[in-house]
């Protein structure tokens, strides 16, 4: 995508959604944790549990949003998908795995209906495999988390090194 306008990191947010107590559902939050200290300071980093209205509140006055969530679309665990939802909805079925009846896909569409969706809104979806209470990330999802963090860092900074504490 050709875009010569420099990114406005001050109006950019990276949101990791998921339940930290339910195995691979925590994948999005794990990505955000890896990115802490690795992005320009102006980029907001937020962890949410995936409830739609909380998501909406964080999209206010944002020009670019990156949202990372676990999904269950039938692909092998750890598969990574990227969706540009700026113009069209998420494939809903894959994201019904929210821990809420009113989750990520609904939050994005509610923002769109209210004219509050950021101009650029990208969703990274990490296919989960195990969602047991209290379980850690499964190995393929943990690997995908690292890959996703790296891809996001490249996408946001164009490869510039903003790392201050890249110990993860």
């Amino acid at each position, binding site marked *: 995508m050709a875009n010569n306008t420099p990114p406005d990191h001050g109006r950019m947010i990276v949101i990791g959604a998921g*339940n*930290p*107590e*339910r195995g691979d*559902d925590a994948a999005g939050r794990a990505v955000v944790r890896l990115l802490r200290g690795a992005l320009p300071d102006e980029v907001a980093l937020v962890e*949410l*549990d*995936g*409830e*739609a*209205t*909380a998501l*909406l*509140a964080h999209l206010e006055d944002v020009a670019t949003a990156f949202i990372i969530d676990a999904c269950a679309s039938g692909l092998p665990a750890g598969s990574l998908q990227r969706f540009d939802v700026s113009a069209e909805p998420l494939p809903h*079925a894959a994201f*019904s*795995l*929210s*821990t*809420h*009846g*009113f989750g990520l896909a*609904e939050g994005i*569409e*509610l923002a769109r*209906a*209210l*004219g509050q969706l950021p101009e650029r809104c990208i969703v990274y979806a990490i296919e989960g495999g195990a*969602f*047991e*209470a*209290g379980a850690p990330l499964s190995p393929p999802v943990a690997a995908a988390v690292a890959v996703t963090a790296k891809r996001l860092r490249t996408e946001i900074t164009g490869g510039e090194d903003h790392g201050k504490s890249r110990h993860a």
Partner: protein
Amino acid sequence: MARKTIKVDYLARVEGEGALTVVIRDGAVESAKLRIFEPPRFFEAFLRGRAFSETPDITARICGICPVAYQMSAVHAIENALGVTVPKPIRDLRRLLYCGEWIESHTLHVYMLHAPDFLGYEGAIEMARDHPDIVKRGLALKKAGNAILSLLGGREIHPINVRVGGFYRTPRRRELQPLAEQLKWARDAALETVQWAGGFEFPECERDYEFVALRHGSEYPFNEGRITSNRGIDITPDQFEAHFEESHVKHSTALQAHRRDGKPYLTGPLARYSLNFDQLSPLAQTAARDAGLGISCMNPYRSIVVRAVEVLYACDEALRLIGNYEEPEQPAIAMQPRAGIGYSATEAPRGLLYHRYRLEADGTIAEANIVPPTSQNQASIEEDLRHFIAGWLDLPDAALRHRCEQTVRNHDPCISCATHFLRLEIDRGQ
């Protein structure tokens, strides 16, 4: 007999995961079973062997929708075991925190999950396209609840500032003033919400529930009170397990609570309202009457109005608490561990939340028992379905399915600790 089974992938607008199977035979409802896939007692096991001081942080993680309720029942039960009572400013701040959770949770349900049923929309997104200003009002009202949680709880989700004995940090009076300004707007919005919801059309359906809720002599119940019912129960929280029991039912991994004589009962907004109308603020009482409610409400479809009244009360009460707030000398009182058993019941948005902890002499948790409102309401929800569906059997499947979903949603079952979605199956036996 020909068999016909209808399935949908998930029941939208219910917090969490579950499944509903309705079996209809020879023109009558044979059974209605709500299955909840709760991780069986994961958190109770997780708590064993942990220090009592860890309970607020651990129990807050049980539910992203009502973390304050879990924290409040936990700290009160531990304090009960340790034989301490917190000073009034701490008690008031806890009450304020609970106001925030009610505003947040109820507003989410009223606007995003329940209202579309009455206005003929598939969901809040479709409703937002036609009524953006109403949905924005709901979002802003919910945000006022978030603001209370952020200020007192340390953050909006899974608050971290609550501890046994008080808080890690208590706010200065001046910090509460911006919150008061926001809440004044929220109180107006909440009043508009009561008026709006009161104008919906409701099916004329009433049930003879046994309502169970806390009752306190001088306040609408959040954190404290006797456990009472409209059929004569009037006990302290330590007597809960003598009157109520949880048991496994075949169709659900979650435990289902009944009275010990096997009868179902209902907790939550309808029960609280009907047992405590006299304790609502004058503003909330007047708004309730103007919206067509009596001093009790047995129609579960009108629960949306009752929730709206409770949001109005929570805004009003939050403003009262902020106005009267005196900064405590210490953010928390010191606690000395000792062996003992502690009990507590508080009013989560969805209903009574009972906790019991047995502590070792060093303060380690030896045993934990948590009875959430949804497991208490599950049997009553099934009875609602059996009772009401009988009158709707001539509806087409799609319409009947929607009525079933709505009947479950009336009680805002929170099964999000169990995750995911509710599958629905209607078996007409055809």
